[in-house]
């Protein structure tokens, strides 16, 4: 597999959510591409040493999101991310990340101009993962 899941017990995030978060992050980072196969529920459960029902719940969430699909007899695969979030929903998900980024920059005494410049630079450099989104770089 191109991605290894790393779960922690005792964190405030439930295990199933850690799995879904990490899967999503892997897709975003490019480590997982559309068509990549994820391990079966049982195999991942035994690898991570967690209850298979937990993995099943994570996979079910991912499937509901549209990130994962099950192909009969073959396994589970990463799939095209469908636009199932409304704009408002999307902004709602983005908002805390923006808040965290700006807050951190302010604490580190970066000026607004420095931040803006860094942001533009990063965006210019951004490589899209395959099977991408509506912005093509």
């Amino acid at each position, binding site marked *: 597999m191109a991605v290894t899941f790393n779960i922690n*017990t005792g964190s405030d995030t439930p295990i199933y959510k850690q799995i879904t978060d990490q899967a999503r992050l892997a897709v975003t980072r490019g480590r997982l591409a559309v068509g990549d196969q994820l391990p079966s529920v049982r195999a991942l459960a035994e690898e991570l040493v*967690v209850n298979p029902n937990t993995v099943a719940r994570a996979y079910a969430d991912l499937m509901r999101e549209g990130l994962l699909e099950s192909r009969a007899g073959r396994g589970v695969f990463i799939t095209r991310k469908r636009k199932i979030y409304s704009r408002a929903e999307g902004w709602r998900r983005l908002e805390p990340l923006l808040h965290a980024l700006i807050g951190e920059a302010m604490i580190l005494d970066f000026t607004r101009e420095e931040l803006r410049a860094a942001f533009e630079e990063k965006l210019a450099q951004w490589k899209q993962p395959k099977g991408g989104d509506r912005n093509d770089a």
Partner: protein
Amino acid sequence: MHEESVIQTRGLTRYFGAKAAVHELNLDVPRGCVFAFLGRNGSGKTTTIRMLAGLLQPTRGSGSILGCDIRALTPEIRARIGYLTEEHQLYSWMSVKECGGFQSKFFAKWNDRIFHGISGHFGLKPAARVKDLSRGERAGLCLALTLAPEPELLMLDDPGLGLDPVARRALVESMIYLTRKSDRTIFFSSHNISDVERVADYIAVLDQSVLRACCPLGTFQESVRQVRLRFAGAPPALPKIPGLLQAVRTENELRVTCAHYNGEAEKILRALSPLEMETVPLGLEDAFISYLGERGEKTFILSEMEAQA
């Protein structure tokens, strides 16, 4: 898929002297799940499990395992139940091989492969005497003996007690391996919340001999929430909140933990007019500690002692 419960109790009660160790326990454990039984030391977990195993007579109430009354467990039912005690006691003069030989003669369905597989997994040598084994090795041996007859229901009383992390991980792996068969049920008690978080579907929490929670694992974690309120000056007195578990007061903060945090509780807290109010998610262990810890408002005990000094 069977819908019936493998373990069912109604009003199960046990007194030791004048004190109730288990008080009116009503439990239903569905087939095929991993069920964790939690509680503080002395809250009645071991007593409950011993009653379920037919080793201790209840003072009143009833219970059934696999459809059989716990006061009269038949040999056939016992063959289908695996029971592991926390002390992992075995006859100290027997060797590993002799333990396996002894146990196998009692069960019609004895899987030698499983026995050797698990003993190998824990690194047990056939000729080693039980008295020379470490605690972890003994636990592995007990586990091998319990799992080899392939029981439908596995009852484990604090199986990880005193085990080193490697042995404990091997134990959890064995439990997950067991869930391969969908009709196998595991009922276990534990103090190790991280293992419980890994492996349990449902949990039940005993608080001073009374059952206070019985729900899926996720539900428990979602139900216990901590709210942090920040004030300009000293925090005000705390009004009565339904489901309040704990409250910690610092110089200008009030941290309130409650179960079933909902609109009503939120309204009461907002009425205190804090500067800031945010809900903090809790890890399972913290939630559990809050749930079973001292109720009510508390200050940290050591700072109190410092203040007095």
